[in-house]
């Protein structure tokens, strides 16, 4: 009977301990989504040689040799807590429309050259806004990155996009259909 006198205290202790060790109620799951980038998303990156998200348009050579076109997507991430995410790869569902990781995308633009200072500026803009080619450590909150598919102009839909991510070590597939 004497032990029953400590029962309320033990119950309170158990309650407090369970609260401390339980996952945060506000935790939830990290969400990843894709959408097609609008021109307003990259309007502050300049134009011509320096904006990496606007396809290069020449006056003569495009007509003779054809030109490349870009399908630019935004990866939007909502992280309820610290997390690590990696983009393993992406497919467009179309032959000849290939996903370029950040390194390949930088090299793609380097081929256009331009002013030396434009190259520096363009590389900086890609480095700051394109999905990194390595695992990314995220803090709580939202973040977004561009990714791009490169193909021959003009690109024609529909596109069945699929991107494979590794979120905190678990594989996750994100799909997007564009007409």
């Amino acid at each position: 009977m004497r032990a029953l006198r400590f029962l309320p205290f033990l119950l309170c202790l158990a309650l407090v301990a369970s609260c401390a060790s339980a996952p945060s109620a506000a935790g939830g799951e990290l969400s990843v989504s894709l959408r097609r980038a609008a021109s307003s998303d990259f309007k502050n990156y300049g134009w011509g040689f320096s904006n990496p998200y606007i396809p290069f348009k020449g006056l003569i050579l495009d007509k003779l040799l054809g030109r490349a076109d870009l399908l630019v997507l935004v990866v939007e991430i909502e992280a309820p807590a610290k997390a690590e995410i990696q983009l393993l790869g992406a497919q467009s569902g179309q032959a000849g429309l290939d996903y370029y990781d950040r390194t390949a995308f930088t090299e793609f633009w380097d081929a256009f050259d331009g002013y030396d200072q434009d190259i520096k500026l363009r590389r900086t803009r890609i480095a700051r806004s394109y999905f990194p080619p390595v695992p990314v450590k995220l803090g709580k909150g939202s973040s977004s990155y561009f990714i791009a598919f490169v193909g021959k102009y003009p690109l024609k839909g529909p596109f069945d996009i699929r991107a494979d991510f590794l979120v905190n070590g678990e594989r996750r597939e994100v799909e997007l259909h564009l007409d």
Partner: protein
Amino acid sequence: MKKLFVLLLALIVAASAFAQLTVAGYDKAKATFNSDSKEGAYSDEIRFNLTAKDADGKYGFSGRFQGTSGTYTPGVDIDADGTNDDIVNEDGDAVVFAKNDFVVKYMYGWASFFDGMLKLSAGRINEGGYQFGANEANSIQGNLDSETDADFVDIRTQSMELTVAPMAGLSASVIYTPNDTITGTDLKYGVAYSVENLLNVKAMMTGNAAGDILGTFGAEFVGVENLSAVAGLKLDNDGTDPVMAVYSIVGYTMDALFFEVAGQYLFETDLVESGYYFEGNAEYTVETYSVRAFGQYNDKMDLAEAGNEYLIGAELSIPVGSGEFNAGFNYGDATKVSVPVYLKIAF
């Protein structure tokens, strides 16, 4: 000149066999009016770039043909003898008066092995991967970067480069530039290391015939979103004595606004010759135009435009079709008011 065009045409035909071919270029025509000398000057530059690689990205080549005219000032004899035949263009190459000097700026082939861990480039290579520089630049800004006066980082000469990338974020290069005799200047070494969203480190070094070490080292902090802060050190030789410089470049992006300040202090053996240089600019960019205000202060160094101790200015850029129109207004204590205008068309 005709041979060069034939070579260019042959290269385009040959390159079309590659899976990925990129051909791009532009012409930029610039005119500047100066209030002090009451003269107008005109110059023109052409760039033509050709890049090709196979479908797997394992081998390819890259080249740039370019022409830059000397600045043409109507009615003014530039040479002492009045012939106007030994002026130089912006790259320091001798050109014939007011005529485009069309040259191969760089042209090299490359191949990568072991899933990109090893890369070999050979030819007139274009190495720029081991340097930092001021990003926002127009015709007179962006003077500050991690290059030394020896200009060894921006290699555009016959060389071979072997690059090793053993892990993500790390790369190292050895560049061999053949000479008649083997000296310390034949070999150049570059290293770059980056930690995503935190730090980028780049270094390059070589030696000169006098046994001095010429080098550049820089570290960029990118741990705060939209901020880039570079600090570095340069070791050089002014022709008689070793010299050292420290530099810093800080940039911040805020939606459509971009700010950047860059500064350098040069330590000379003779302290009287030591000096510093600062430049800064703010740019606002939207879809239809871009405006920029800038300034620079030059203590004793020769980085500033046309020998001005200080210079301030502003400019407006407007996209025009596949190119750009740019008009500016500059004021320098030596050059007074000048109005540069240029039109750049991509072809």
